[in-house]
């Protein structure tokens, strides 16, 4: 039985926490391109490389498109690969996100969430990663720098699990997390290394009729990234979807195993309820906003309002059952989106929550708030819970 290990408390920004976690994760290839507010990640990591603190091959590519491509290619060659980006950089990767998940390359990527142009804006919102919702990547959103650190380490375990073999994005809110210094408890190098383990490869049938590890290996030639016609394409996609479903239990398992060595867990790994039991009104949000919201919930509780919060940590795969059972007894739910779905019926998180609750025996009222676009402050969050569910319809705050 593993037990909680002694940890070192460091003062790290979210970006630095990412770089430090990557340093400890025995990553073989980091390929990346700078963009605010992610840049500190690659800068810190470059320092580790320059000072000989890691054995990683660092590829400073000429674009994010090539950064992700290089990670994907490294990954299928058998390496553990990492990249980081934000906003325009993630948008530029769009094409390759699908190729990465389709090739079942367990690349891990940090996203310092930032608004999309135009107008140009470097501050935090979720438009960048929400636009990649259907790219076949697992999406985790962290609440603070500690969780950023923990999630990056967990992400390698989740991605590389042979029942998953899917890429993972870890979202950290631009500036709010990426640039804010916090206390972060860090595990010893050896513990992290052991927790993640070495890369595993499922054995697959090659065209030579041999069973061989799923990677590019001159001893066992394999054709990767082929063309598949309608007879087979759908089979590939179906398998990807099954892997996503498998990820639900793997994320939970990794969350609880990690708790054993670190003493930290994030709900069940998928959702984190806060004062939700017997709550009458609840908010749903992602990322750092949950920190603010927990304070709001405490204040409301002190005033006798039965308020609660559900933080959605894993947006993809969507933990449908967990969400439904956590929210079905609440009278009203306020869903907070830091992203606009232009011309749609509310933001992307709202779509999911409302959809999940449609099948509940008694459906709560569900309202949507679009907030904090382009980094607009969200201190007035309390009113999301106070407003009567019927009178608010997603107006900008």
């Amino acid at each position, binding site marked *: 039985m593993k037990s909680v290990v002694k940890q070192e408390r460091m003062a790290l920004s979210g970006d630095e926490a990412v770089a430090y976690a990557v340093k400890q994760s025995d990553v073989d290839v980091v390929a990346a391109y700078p963009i605010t507010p992610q840049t500190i990640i690659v800068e810190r990591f470059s320092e580790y490389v320059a000072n000989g603190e890691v054995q*990683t091959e660092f590829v400073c590519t000429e674009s994010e498109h090539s950064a992700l*491509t290089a990670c994907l290619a490294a990954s299928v060659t058998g*390496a553990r690969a990492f990249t980081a980006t934000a906003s325009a950089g993630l948008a530029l990767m769009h094409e390759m996100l699908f190729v990465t998940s389709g090739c079942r390359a367990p690349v891990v990527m940090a996203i310092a969430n930032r608004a999309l142009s135009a107008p140009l804006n470097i501050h935090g919102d979720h438009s960048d990663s929400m636009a990649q919702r259907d790219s076949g990547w697992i999406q985790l959103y962290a609440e603070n720098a500690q969780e950023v650190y923990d999630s990056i380490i967990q992400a390698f375990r989740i991605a590389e699990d042979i029942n998953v073999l899917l890429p993972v994005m870890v979202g950290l809110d631009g500036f709010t997390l990426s640039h804010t210094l916090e206390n972060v408890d860090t595990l010893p190098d050896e513990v992290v290394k052991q927790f993640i383990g070495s890369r595993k490869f499922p054995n697959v049938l090659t065209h030579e009729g041999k069973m061989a590890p799923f990677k590019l290996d001159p001893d066992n030639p394999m054709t990767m990234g*082929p*063309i598949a016609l309608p007879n087979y394409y759908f089979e590939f996609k179906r398998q990807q979807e099954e892997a996503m479903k498998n990820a639900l239990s793997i994320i939970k398992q990794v969350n609880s195993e990690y708790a054993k060595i670190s003493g930290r867990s994030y709900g069940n790994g998928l959702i984190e309820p806060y004062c939700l039991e017997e709550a009458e009104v609840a908010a749903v949000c992602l990322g750092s906003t949950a920190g603010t919201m927990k304070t709001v919930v405490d204040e409301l509780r002190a005033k006798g309002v039965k308020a609660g919060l559900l933080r959605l940590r894993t947006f993809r795969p969507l933990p449908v059952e967990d969400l439904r059972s956590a929210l079905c007894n609440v009278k009203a739910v306020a869903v907070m989106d830091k992203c606009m779905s232009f011309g749609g019926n509310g933001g992307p998180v709202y779509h999911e929550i409302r959809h999940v609750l449609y099948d509940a025996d008694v459906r709560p009222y569900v309202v949507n708030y679009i907030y904090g676009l382009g980094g607009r402050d969200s201190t007035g969050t309390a009113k999301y819970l106070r407003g009567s569910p019927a009178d608010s319809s997603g107006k900008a705050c």
Partner: protein
Amino acid sequence: MEMAKQEWKFTTKDIAEKPDLFLSGHRACAGCVPTTVLRLIMKALRGPTIVTQATGCMEVVSSIYPYTSWAVPWLHTAFETAAANASGIEAALKALKRKGRLKHEHVDVIAIAGDGGTYDIGFQALSGAVERGHDFLFVLYDNEAYMNTGIQRSGGTPKGAATTTSPAGTAIPGKLEYKKPIADIMVAHEIPYVATASPYYWRDLLEKVRKGLEVEGPAFLHVLAPCPRGWRSDQAKSIEYSRLAVETCVFPLWEAVNGQYQLSVASKLIALAPQKKRPVTDYLQGQGRFRHLFSPQNKHLLEDFQRITDERWRRLLAKCGVSAKP
């Protein structure tokens, strides 16, 4: 760097005996030279090799799941990514070797792309990868248009050629722009090895592949690869066109070792005996994509084709230190 004297020899017997690593059964058109080029390249390997390829005809005809023509590990990711794939593969091999996790002493990396995946959409990734100095060989099989999507013009399409996006119309007679001098642009990247090749001169091609693999750092090989479908030419004459392109100096054969240009034998013979240089019309005739150039009102275009060919040939001779003879 010393590039002379290779111990290897590619004799006809060697080549015939060496097992194919690019296998038959692919779906290319009859008379497709790009597939011939792939087969030849795979005969020149020196050891464990990973091949990566851009989207295009050669990828599509060779990897229709669950079939494959590749007897080596092979990766395709997208159209513009051949060089980025190679960067990632090479970086992975380096890291795994450093950590003692690579089974092989060395693994060669070859990236293959068509003209679209090289001159145009893949150029940024290529330029970046060679600037970073990754150790890989990039092979451009140049069939001078986007064939996979139905013969659209590329930066490698010669001036005057009719394609489906530069048709020979009544107002505009085919492509208006000259072929981009891609191999010279690669030399300008100051990489250790750049060469041109044509499969009619197959031994020259094999030797250049091998040199490109042996050199440390990036190498670039530009192979002209006639496509009867897109060139509207006789399927039986594809290899003949790959010879005529050289004999007319439309596509001279040379290599630049550490930036030092030198003519390869076939082109050197023409430089030494200029009377052997054939007129471009010998090459253009019979190719449907140039048919309109032979109508009287387009005489000036034909002359311009000869002019740019001569001018580029003169410049090449100067770079090779050969004085141009009339």
